[in-house]
């Protein structure tokens, strides 16, 4: 199968590869997929607790070239967005930006899920009544 130029570009020059400190309270971490299925995506978002804007993003992906490109693109896409807006990002945006063929749609779904998982993780520290707990943990680990 031939890859689109955009997939190749993201694969060759992936944006924002790396990791943030998982225990940082401002960081939401989403890990989706499973190694037995051949795809695991880790997306981390640094979210400003006051403005709730995504200030930075990092990813690491085990998966095909389209999965790597999808997660790389997503790190660019979410930066500067409010988390409410980021929660509405649909995989179809990724599909059309990267020209993914039908067999690669699930790679984009995974990237959409990763955004939701990362924001969900951040919210756990900031909304479910226990922001303090996260702060405390951070202090201990720091």
């Amino acid at each position, binding site marked *: 199968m031939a*890859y689109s130029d955009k997939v*190749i570009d993201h*694969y060759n020059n*992936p944006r924002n*590869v790396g*990791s943030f400190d998982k225990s940082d309270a401002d960081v939401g971490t989403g*890990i*989706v*997929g*499973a*190694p*037995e*299925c*051949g*795809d*695991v*995506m*880790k997306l981390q978002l640094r979210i400003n607790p006051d403005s709730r804007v995504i200030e930075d993003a990092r990813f*690491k*992906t*085990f*998966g*095909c*070239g389209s*999965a*790597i490109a999808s997660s790389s693109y997503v790190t660019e896409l979410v930066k500067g967005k409010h988390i409410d807006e980021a929660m509405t990002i649909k995989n179809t945006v990724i599909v059309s930006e990267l020209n993914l063929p039908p*067999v690669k749609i*699930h790679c984009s*779904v*995974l990237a959409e*899920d990763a955004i939701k*998982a990362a924001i969900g993780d951040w919210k756990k520290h900031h909304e479910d009544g226990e922001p303090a707990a996260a702060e405390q943990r951070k202090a201990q680990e720091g």
Partner: protein
Amino acid sequence: MPKLPIYMDNHATTPVDQRVLEAMLPYFSEKFGNAASRNHSFGWEAEEAVDRARGQIAQLIKAKSKEIIFTSGATESDNLAIKGVVEFYKEKGDHIVTCVTEHKAVLDSCRALERAGKATVTYLPVDKYGMVDPDAVRKAITDRTVLVTIMYANNEVGTIHPVAEIGRIARERGAVFHCDAVQAAGKIPVDVDRDHIDLLSISAHKIYGPKGVGALYVRSKGPRVRITPQMDGGGHERGMRSGTLNVTGIVGLGKACEVAASEMAEENRRLLDLRDKLQAGIFERLDEVSLNGHPTERLPGNLNVSFAYVEGESLLMGLHDIAVSSGSACTSATLEPSYVIRALGVSDELAHSSIRFGLGRFNTEAEVDFVTDRVTHEVKRLREMSPLYEMARDGIDLKSVQWKAE
């Protein structure tokens, strides 16, 4: 630097050898006769060429010329052998013994017979190297077994089965032994008498011949083996396979066998050196790589490795100027990782990470060096991008993680 792209997928297909091409050329427009035309020189010329090819093929596998039946390729040979035996010997029994790592042409022929209620099938497991235990074959054979079908060497991991022993057991128990020797004939010494083979499939395009032509060896004596034809028509090939013979293709298959037979020993030494160099280079320069297949009982040109924490298709993408293949689900239409690699007991994760290198007649040492460098570089790069590599380095046991798969 070698010329790019590099072809290292010689289990999938091979380029036509120049000598083979030259042998074929006159038979397109100059000597175009139908080998079945018995009453003019055009037909005789074609028939003569076909007979010469029969001899060349027979010599490669130590058979007799008249025991060679031409087909459209090994898929047809496998179908004809399996369905033909089951149908012919239906009064005697209906049981087949095969193994889980066979090619789809064999497995799906067996399944079709099962579905049609014409046979029951035992699918033997393989050990961690991909090898069938002859003792398991012995135990699986019953009074109703009419056919044992086990391949000579596997097309993904290269493991060479103990064929002579399996053949002896089948012969003792009165079952017909069919062997898919597509990856072995022309690569390693095959001898239908020594190996007690009754039916044997070969394909031209795996041995530097053209695509779309193959042959089935059918034993004529000690014992004579019978098959029911699977195609009705003009009764060519002694009634076993109707259809005007593909004379050009057959000439190519014959020549390919002749070249393979005369150069096998030298070619094997050369391929083994290249393969061992590739293997050693990869294993020295990368950690957490594992070999899929038998360490020694393996086709000389085969190297199948899993690169832990790196998904196979993404690695293929990084190796865009090198043609190899992967057992990863992402490269398959079914989104399932290779059933062959899984049958060795390799985890799904490592099956997704497998790459098959298939070295052949035209690969060079410079290409092996280049591939070693590129593979090492890409695997390291992709591992830096892999969340699994990071977790493993942090001491997290990946098996203990609760994955949120869809």
